[in-house]
């Protein structure tokens, strides 16, 4: 259950950052971000200080959800 909540939070945060990537960098880099969400994640951290993008909260949430997911999968419990 916990891992599912984490995944949904990570998904929502990822999509929000991806939309901002499309808006800021254009279609081609947006597609690159869609192909490789890891690129979107890195781009989010590289630009999270830019106030106009308002990425800070989303990046903190996304990162926390990913760390939670990794911990849960390392524990092998899946949060259930």
């Amino acid at each position, binding site marked *: 259950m916990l891992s599912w909540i984490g995944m949904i939070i990570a998904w929502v945060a990822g999509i929000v950052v991806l939309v901002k990537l499309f808006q800021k960098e254009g279609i081609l880099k947006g*597609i690159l971000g*869609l192909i490789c969400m890891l690129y979107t994640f890195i781009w989010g951290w590289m630009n999270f200080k830019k106030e106009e993008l308002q990425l800070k909260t989303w990046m903190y949430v996304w990162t926390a959800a990913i760390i939670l*997911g990794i911990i849960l999968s390392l524990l092998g419990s899946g949060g259930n």
Partner: protein
Amino acid sequence: MRLAAFERLVFTPVFATLLSQRRDGLILVGVGAIQVGLHLAGLPGWQCPIKAITGLPCPGCGLTEAVGDLLHGDWRGAMAAHAFAPLFLLAFILLLIVSVLPEAARQRTVAIIATCEQRTGLMAWVLFSLMVYWGFRLFGLV
């Protein structure tokens, strides 16, 4: 008017802009190497949020596994996992090489790649092809 917008979209350098910042290039290469390394070590790494939630692969799903297969010399496995893996591996190698070049040589190389992209639209065609390939994968055609 629309044709001009399409041309602007296709012939805008994308890869060159990734290469233009040394720090960004090194971060991308480093994170990519960690991801592939974790996969090869059998450890959990980056999980695609799209696949985790929807169960459907994103356009890049399978790339880590495919690059891992390529590094092991398993071309067949790599092609089965993701047909664009050789291109991505090549791009990462290029990113690494350009990121560690001396500044003058780095800028010359970036300028050459930018010109190449502006003339051919190569990166745009690769990305669009990848989206088509994704469509084929979603419908189980490849």
